């Protein structure tokens, strides 16, 4: 289908006729340039719609019409040019014809140009405005957003629209202040972490030194004071006996402390990777290790069904042994009763070790877990103060928590959590 805009624009076609319609001159490429008298075509034959103009007596001087022609619709303007004032019926006909499609094309292209102009007029300011908007608002906002995103990822050097004088600038500057502070805090934290790591290594080093270098001379001090006591007890005066007794006691205590410290540091150095472990087996092992203490105190230790958890079996036994051992050691007037149970909580198991012992005052709930912290004199209750610190270290190494609830004179319950074993989801 031919469309107006697609058709080539042709020159206007003009005709000059006499008053009969005979074509005298023309620029129609469809017609021969000149005619023999007999073959001269009449305009009304080419454009039948103009026939009325050539009717005798037609008074219409000019017309502007859309007509059909062989080449398609045309728009014709026709004008009579009289040349004899006395005989107005004699005239020269001047016809100008354009194909409609060319006009439409022209109009379409004009329309397009107008549209383009309109678009330019309308869009121009919009583009300018949006450029302005981008510059003032969007770009700084984008920068800020990127900066926030990077900051969440721990990168604080993203450029910011700091120079802006509006709220955006204010926001950017506040954000920069904030990231600066976060950065400083992070650096401080990293430094602390490094120091912690170092001091941790120093503790391990100390534990090594304690085991290999301190033990040996200490063994000598302890052995010889013991030998002194053994050989000369009662053979010197009472003062000497007392002094020797203190020396023996001190050396023995120091040995126990060093051994405790070693045991404490071995939680991380000699701990095995947690694996699915039947806590009931660990519990039984702990109870059997406590056999003598249980017999002496007449303790009754009971338990609910115990689950399989992710743990180092040896360390889990240590935890049970320390908690149950404490429950037996710190018993009240009644024979100790200890009950161990476990209940599922999310992806972990919450264990509890409940006793009917002397209880702990709430203000000491945290302190009992600190290494070498004791609430009683060694005369009342023996021990170095390592047991609960050891439990805490073990439980935390397994990704669990440990805490205590207690009522003075009524009893104490220790709680700790351990991750559930994969196949034994609670």
């Amino acid at each position, binding site marked *: 289908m031919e469309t107006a805009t697609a058709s080539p624009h042709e020159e206007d076609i003009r005709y000059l006729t006499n008053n009969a319609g005979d074509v005298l001159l023309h620029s129609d490429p469809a017609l021969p340039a000149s005619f023999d008298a007999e073959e001269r075509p009449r305009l009304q034959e080419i454009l039948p719609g103009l026939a009325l103009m050539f009717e005798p007596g037609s008074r219409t001087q000019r017309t502007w019409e859309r007509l059909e022609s062989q080449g398609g619709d045309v728009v014709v303007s026709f004008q009579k040019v009289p040349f004899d004032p006395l005989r107005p019926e004699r005239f020269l006909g001047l016809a100008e014809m354009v194909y409609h499609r060319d006009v439409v094309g022209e109009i379409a292209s004009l329309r397009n140009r107008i549209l383009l102009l309109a678009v330019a007029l309308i869009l121009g300011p919009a583009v300018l405005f949006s450029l302005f908007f981008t510059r003032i608002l969007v770009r700084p906002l984008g920068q800020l957003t990127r900066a926030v995103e990077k900051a969440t990822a721990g990168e604080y050097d993203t450029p910011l629209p700091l120079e802006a004088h509006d709220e955006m600038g204010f926001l950017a500057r506040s954000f920069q202040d904030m990231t600066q502070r976060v950065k400083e805090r992070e650096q401080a934290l990293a430094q602390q972490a490094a120091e912690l790591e170092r001091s941790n290594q120093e503790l391990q080093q100390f534990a090594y030194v304690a085991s290999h270098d301190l033990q040996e001379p200490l063994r000598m001090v302890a*052995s*010889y004071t*013991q*030998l002194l006591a053994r050989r000369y007890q009662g053979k010197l005066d009472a003062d000497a006996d007392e002094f020797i007794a203190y020396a023996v006691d001190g050396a023995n205590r120091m*040995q126990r402390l060093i051994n405790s410290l070693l045991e404490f540091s071995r939680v991380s150095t000699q701990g095995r990777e947690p694996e699915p472990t039947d806590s009931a087996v660990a519990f039984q092992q702990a109870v059997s290790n406590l056999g003598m203490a249980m017999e002496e105190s007449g303790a009754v230790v009971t338990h609910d069904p115990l689950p399989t958890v992710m743990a180092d079996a040896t360390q889990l036994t240590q935890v049970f042994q320390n908690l149950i051992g404490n429950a037996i050691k710190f018993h009240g007037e009644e024979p100790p009763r200890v009950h161990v149970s476990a209940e599922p909580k999310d992806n972990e198991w919450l264990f509890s070790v409940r006793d009917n012992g002397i209880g702990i005052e709430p203000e000491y709930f945290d302190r009992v877990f600190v290494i070498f912290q004791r609430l009683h004199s060694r005369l009342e209750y023996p021990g170095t103060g390592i047991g609960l610190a050891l439990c805490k270290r073990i439980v935390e190494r397994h990704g669990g928590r440990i805490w205590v609830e207690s009522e003075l004179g009524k009893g104490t319950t220790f709680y700790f959590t351990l991750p559930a074993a994969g196949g034994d989801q609670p």
Partner: protein
Amino acid sequence: MEDNPADVRLTREALRESRVPANLRVVVDGVEAMEFLYRRGRYGEAARPDLTLLDLNLPRKDGREVLAEIKSDLTLRCIPVVVLTTSEAGEDVFQCYNLHANCYITKPIDLDRFMATMKSTFDFWFTVVKLPTE
């Protein structure tokens, strides 16, 4: 074979308490230990020991080297070697038995237990066990 005189004395006391009739000869480093066993230098007149107590941490020549040398020498390897040390490391225990130590004892820290351990060791090697004669 022990470089710490205090330890030597404790062993001597333990020997005395165990009432086993044995002479204790002391060498204070690994090199001397080998000279003693080979009866070289100033140990030319030394008697061949019935039993050796070997500390692992010796100066000059380490206790493990001494053990390896004893057990690879045709004339010395039938002398029982009791490794007597403070080390509890599983690695040391394994290595010593691998070098054919006759037994491995970790010295108990507590005096009473030390005395008891030494007494039973002496009892075992000098009264229960039949030792080779030259």
